[in-house]
């Protein structure tokens, strides 16, 4: 992207945020239009059902617009929204009592690092993640996709760091097994 265009976009976004914080519905709509598709995708990482993901996204945007005055303009607006969406998803799963973490802490070992098959579709990846238990999936997405540290995950999910690590290890194990299965089915090889 042209850097001038990026600066322009940033300026526009800053102005829109200002307007939106004054409850300008048009500005809020524009911001929503810009960020909603990405945020719905983020919510979908954590929540199986797209309608529920949409519900969570709407709640997240409601919080975004009502708490917009507390947004520190020095940081990234997208990052701020994303964090709200993740918290909203965690709250949703907690309310549905779907978020459970097995307490056993296994010693984590590195699993063989292989490249993913290039032909694998995003929908297939999402399906693989969807098949993970809630606890595994949550930690895996937060760590591997969102880039949170174990300490942060532990704080956000109110669990131990060790639990977070073991959940990630198990999630990886399961995911690799599923990827192997997928490759065997689609490409006739058990390599990931």
């Amino acid at each position, binding site marked *: 992207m042209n850097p001038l265009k990026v600066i322009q976009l940033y300026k526009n976004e800053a102005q829109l945020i200002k307007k939106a914080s004054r*409850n300008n*519905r048009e500005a*809020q*709509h524009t911001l*929503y*239009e810009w960020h*909603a*598709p*990405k945020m*719905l*995708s983020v919510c*979908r*990482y954590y929540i199986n059902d*797209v309608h529920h*993901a*949409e519900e969570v*996204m*709407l709640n997240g*945007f*409601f919080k975004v*617009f*009502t708490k917009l005055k507390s947004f520190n303009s020095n940081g990234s607006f997208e990052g701020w929204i994303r964090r709200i969406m993740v918290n909203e998803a965690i709250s949703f799963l907690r309310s549905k009592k779907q978020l459970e973490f097995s307490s056993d802490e296994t010693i*984590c070992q*590195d*699993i063989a*690092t*292989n*490249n*993913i098959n290039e032909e*694998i579709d*995003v929908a297939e*990846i*999402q399906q693989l993640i969807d098949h993970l238990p809630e606890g595994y999936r949550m930690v895996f997405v937060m*760590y*591997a*996709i969102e880039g949170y540290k*174990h300490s942060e995950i532990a704080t956000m999910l109110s669990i131990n760091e060790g639990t977070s*690590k073991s959940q*990630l*290890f198990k999630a*990886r194990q399961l995911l690799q097994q599923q*990827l192997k299965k997928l490759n065997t089915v689609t490409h006739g090889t058990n390599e*990931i």
Partner: protein
Amino acid sequence: MAPMKYEEQLKDKLEQRTIQPSSNTWQNLSDKLDANESKKNSKGFWYLGIAASIVGVLLITTIINNGNTDTIEPIIVNTNKTDSEPININTKDKIVTKDKETHFYKTEKVASENNMKEPLKKQRSNKSALKQKLNKEQHKLILNKIDEMVVAENSKETSKETTIKPLSFEEQKAKEVVVQIQTMQQSREVTNAEIDALLSAAQREISFKRLYNENTKTIDANALLLSVENDIEEQSFRTRVFEMLKTGYNEVKTVVAQRNN
């Protein structure tokens, strides 16, 4: 635990994905935001209402408090006014009438004296005219002095918030003196000295009545001191008048003597 290569690839693929929300989601969100705003406004309205009512209550209490003090004060003032004002007017009028009466008798006496003297000595007519003038001046001065006294008495009385009783006594005394003079006049001619004696006796009685409190059977020290001071002032005033008369008489005497010569 380092991220694995396939995880990074998963991340890249997922990050590139976007899901378009359904068409009515924005409308839902907008409605929710509107509802929240109206809620906030209503909350603000309630807070405003509560604040306004508190302010109102405070204002009302202050007004009531002020109103109470206002209503109390006039009551006191009204009672004072009702007690003192009419009395003042009455006493003033009465004392002034008394003074007028005495003045009238004095002038009458002077006139009668002049009538007697005129046919006897023509030379003395000028003297008597001058005397009359001097007498008038004296009367004027006395009247002024009496007025001042009356005003002083009235001010004292209003400040002390005295009742009608002593004033009625004064009135009674004044009437008594007038009646005495009238009875004396009917039988014979009344001299200035007699009138003065009657007046001074009445004055003494009044002042004693004022000093002496019958209820407590005590004499008011302050009033006594004040009356003594007034007497001293009166004396000095009297001597001044006499001196003035004396000098005036001497001047007239010398003028007449020089003219005769």
